[in-house]
């Protein structure tokens, strides 16, 4: 199932290595995300999920290997990282909405400042997006006045406002109450329905099983196992994967 889909994958990682000082966090990651696919990264804390997402968004410089976006090598030092990031949306675990701006300004900031979209157009588009996720009446509020689930949905809409080719989600439900997790996952499911290409790190195994096209198990900075969710989550090959899943079941999350 590697590669998958027609033509070049949207995202393709080959031998990606990342070190923090003496610690090798990513030790040669190979990974493809085909268009319209949802790929979930699972693994224990410290397995390198977040680091991989940050490398893809060029927030971290890789120490070896190649990351391709639509066939273009984005780890080449000659490319402009700002232009690459415009084609990638990322949502963080702790929302990272700008607290000094209203929700609407958060969403329209990038289209207005980076995309050069006129103020009025950006706002009407943002209002349409916020309306679709039921946050239209919160548009003028400041982020601190919203619930965690509302903030995270607003953060996802902010990442979508640039119409990215690829959406990166970094444990977007980990900081949320269980009852608020549902509204965020519903939104992600809708995005998949619209054909968005998504790479997400998550601990929501049930969601991964339902929505993901492929599940990738990271362990100690390498891809230990990958495949369709029913195989990786249902019938894992490696002992490490089984051990990890057993612990997740113990914690009551599957």
């Amino acid at each position, binding site marked *: 199932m590697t590669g998958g889909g027609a033509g070049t994958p949207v995202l393709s990682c080959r*031998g990606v290595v990342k070190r*923090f000082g*003496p*610690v*090798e966090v990513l030790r040669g990651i190979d990974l493809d995300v085909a268009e319209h696919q949802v790929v979930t990264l699972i693994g224990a804390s410290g397995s390198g999920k977040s680091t991989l997402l*940050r490398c893809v968004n*060029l*927030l*971290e*410089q890789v*120490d*070896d*290997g*190649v990351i391709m976006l639509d066939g273009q090598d984005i*780890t*080449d*030092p*000659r490319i402009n*990282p700002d232009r690459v990031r415009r084609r990638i949306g990322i949502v963080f675990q702790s929302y990272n909405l700008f607290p000094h701006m209203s929700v609407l300004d958060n969403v329209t900031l990038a289209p207005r400042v980076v995309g050069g979209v006129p103020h009025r157009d950006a706002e009407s588009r943002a209002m349409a997006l916020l309306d679709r996720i039921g946050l239209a009446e919160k548009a003028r509020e400041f982020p601190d006045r919203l619930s965690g689930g509302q903030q995270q949905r607003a953060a996802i809409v902010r990442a979508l406002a640039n119409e990215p080719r690829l959406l990166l989600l970094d444990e977007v439900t980990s900081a949320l109450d269980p009852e608020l997790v549902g509204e965020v996952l519903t939104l992600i499911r809708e995005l998949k329905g619209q054909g968005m290409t998504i790479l997400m790190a998550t601990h929501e195994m049930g969601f991964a099983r339902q929505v993901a096209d492929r599940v990738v198990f990271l362990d100690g900075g390498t891809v230990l196992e990958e495949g369709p969710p029913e195989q990786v989550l249902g019938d894992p090959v490696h002992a490490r994967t089984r051990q990890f899943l057993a612990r997740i079941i113990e914690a009551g999350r599957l």
Partner: protein
Amino acid sequence: MAGRRGRGSRAGVAPRTAEPAAPVSAIQAEREAFRRRQRRRSSVVAGLSTAVFLVACAFAITRAPGWARVREQFFDAEVAVASLPRIWQGLLLNLRVLVVAAVATVLVALTLAALRSLRGPVWFPLRLLATTYTDLFRGVPLIIVLYVVGFGLPGLRLEGVPTSPAVLGTVAIVLCYSAYVAEVFRAGMEAVHPSQRAAARSLGLTHGQSLRLVVLPQAVRKVTPPLLNDFVAMQKDVGLISVLGAVDAVRAAQIESAEAFNFTPYLVAGLLFVLLAIPSARLADWAAGRTARREQAGGLA
């Protein structure tokens, strides 16, 4: 595996230090070479533009029609050497005043900031007092405070009021600076998220305890860079006590320059103040950098 490799290389560290830590792919080697070339190019550009700027400045100054006279009046090496001991003695007085004034300012300012943070109608008089104080002493020019405290206070001829110009000058500097620094502290306290205060109060801490143990430590960390900035400002403002007659570095330079009919001693004093400020400025940079590193865990953005 990384651990095993680490242990191996430590054992054989002497004969193979030149070897790179890990083998690198051709594409990574090319990337690193490119980045090295870019770095080299930008440092060459920076070096060249600095050199051009300095040469242009030197040229403009030395070609000025009055340069010969200015050089004689301001850059006389003999006068500089002769005036140095006395100015150095003066600078030691400045340093003593600085240390005392800095410590006193922090204490007064913290008290003022804490008073202004008190909630509830009972504390209104104290809040009003602190607010009036900061409004007053931030508004009045330091030199006027120096005159009023330095000449007015001893003029009252009260028992126990000090008459030494250095002590009175220190008092005036503390009065002015504590008003500024109090506002810096208050800004820092307000920058601590309200949820922190809520968390402290919910544990049963009183207003004072949560201020002292939770809010202030975070506030001080946030405002360390601006505080060090104020410290650098104070370093040179201690030179103003010379207007009260204290023989500090500035006063010593004035005396020397009157004796030699030459302005060079002022430049010597100025240079000494700059040398004094440089370590503080680097300390401020270091503190700001440490805060930045602590708050963002790496990353390029």
